[in-house]
């Protein structure tokens, strides 16, 4: 049997606000297999981003376990966790978060710098070719939104992660760019990446293998997409 890329079991994330306890996540469980694209929908505040932060090792659950590629990361020491995250997970955000003073190819090199890896330029070029961007020396302000997101996707892919977490990746894009980004995701899924896509965009959600709907930190519906 194939090892799932993600197994989240009964994940809780609770915050204390004064005397009150707020459960941003209240018992979330989700399994993602290699080559599977899962859509997460739900209103603002339903727990979507909090869940991505737990799965992406950017935050620690109050309760529950998260297993990534067969490794239980719950309770892993911070330093190890950061290294694990950098090796296994790619992040894509709505606002791209490109460094405006660095060119496209330089932005893609960033994750390799932190991992102290070699052949940075060649690998960054390869990642940009894969997402179809030719203006590799352009600065972000010289690119349109769709191309900025291509750069951000190339940056997320350059260290060959197993799991891609995308938080409203097409939220700021026009129709044409949304279609192109979705095409890239389809290709990545075919290559065996696990993808979790948080989105408000019904067209995008329809492209996923299944959609889970969150409300108050819980799954309230799960359905086949399309």
């Amino acid at each position, binding site marked *: 049997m194939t090892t799932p890329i993600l197994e989240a079991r009964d994940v809780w994330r609770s915050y204390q606000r004064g005397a009150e306890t707020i459960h941003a996540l209240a018992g979330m469980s989700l399994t993602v297999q290699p080559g599977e694209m899962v859509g997460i929908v739900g209103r603002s505040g339903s727990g979507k981003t909090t869940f991505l932060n737990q799965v992406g090792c950017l935050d620690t659950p109050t309760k529950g376990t998260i297993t990534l590629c067969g490794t239980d990361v719950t309770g892993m020491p911070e330093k190890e966790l950061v290294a694990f995250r950098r090796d296994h997970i790619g992040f894509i955000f709505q606002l791209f978060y490109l*460094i405006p*003073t660095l*060119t496209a190819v330089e932005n893609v090199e960033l994750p390799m710098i*932190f991992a102290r890896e070699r052949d940075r330029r060649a690998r960054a070029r390869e990642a940009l070719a894969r997402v179809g961007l030719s203006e590799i020396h352009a600065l972000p302000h010289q690119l349109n939104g769709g191309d900025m997101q291509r750069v951000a996707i190339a940056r997320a892919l350059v260290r060959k992660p197993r799991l891609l977490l995308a938080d409203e990746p097409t939220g700021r894009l026009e129709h044409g760019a949304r279609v192109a980004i979705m095409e890239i995701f389809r290709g990545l899924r075919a290559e065996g990446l696990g993808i979790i896509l948080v989105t408000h965009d019904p067209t995008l959600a329809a492209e996923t293998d299944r959609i889970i709907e969150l409300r108050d930190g819980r799954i309230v519906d799960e359905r086949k997409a399309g």
Partner: protein
Amino acid sequence: MAEAAVDQTATPVAEASGLGKIYRRGAEEIHALREISVAFAPGAFSCVLGPSGAGKSTLLNLLGVMDVPTAGTLRVAGATIAEGGRLRLSEGGRDKLRRENIGFIFTEFFLLPTLTAVENVQLPLLWADKDDRAYAAELLERVGLGHRLTHRPTEMSGGEMQRVAIARALINRPRLLLADEPTGNVDTTTRDGIFDLFRELNADGLTIVLATHDRELAARMDRVVHVREGRVVEETA
């Protein structure tokens, strides 16, 4: 706050003469800047004031070597970028000049959400294969965030994120700090705190050019360059 001594006879950190920028959109030509002649002396704290669309960001992008002019002469940090509308510095040369001499701050903070404050500050240096975590930490201390080194952007307020962005802009010990509407995303109290920080950095000798449409903020600066429809229409000191 003491003001930095400004020597107007010294070679300017950035100097434009007859500077122009035309963008082409299909058959249409958009004149973003026309005939701009302006100089920024070492240690000066200058404001570029104008309404949205006046050409402020285009001017800052040229001064910061993020874009190239289509007319005129531009010198930055001792290098000639363009002369009489002709480029004098290669793309690689411009990248190097920008990386070594310019600090840039924007309305949006552009911090990487997966990195801590100190890692975000280190980024520009790491890119050049240098590593100086101690200096990054010192800069965060300098902007009042010594207690937030290992926090990530999502754990911070807007004002704190902008302070991290300022520390990041300082990591290469820039000769010129360019700030494009740096307080456009924060409330007035936070704005005043950020502005005080710029004042302190200028008092330490840093040359700063700040672009804004905020007249109240402009009134607090040594020198104001008024820009409208791509031209400098007035200069006040």
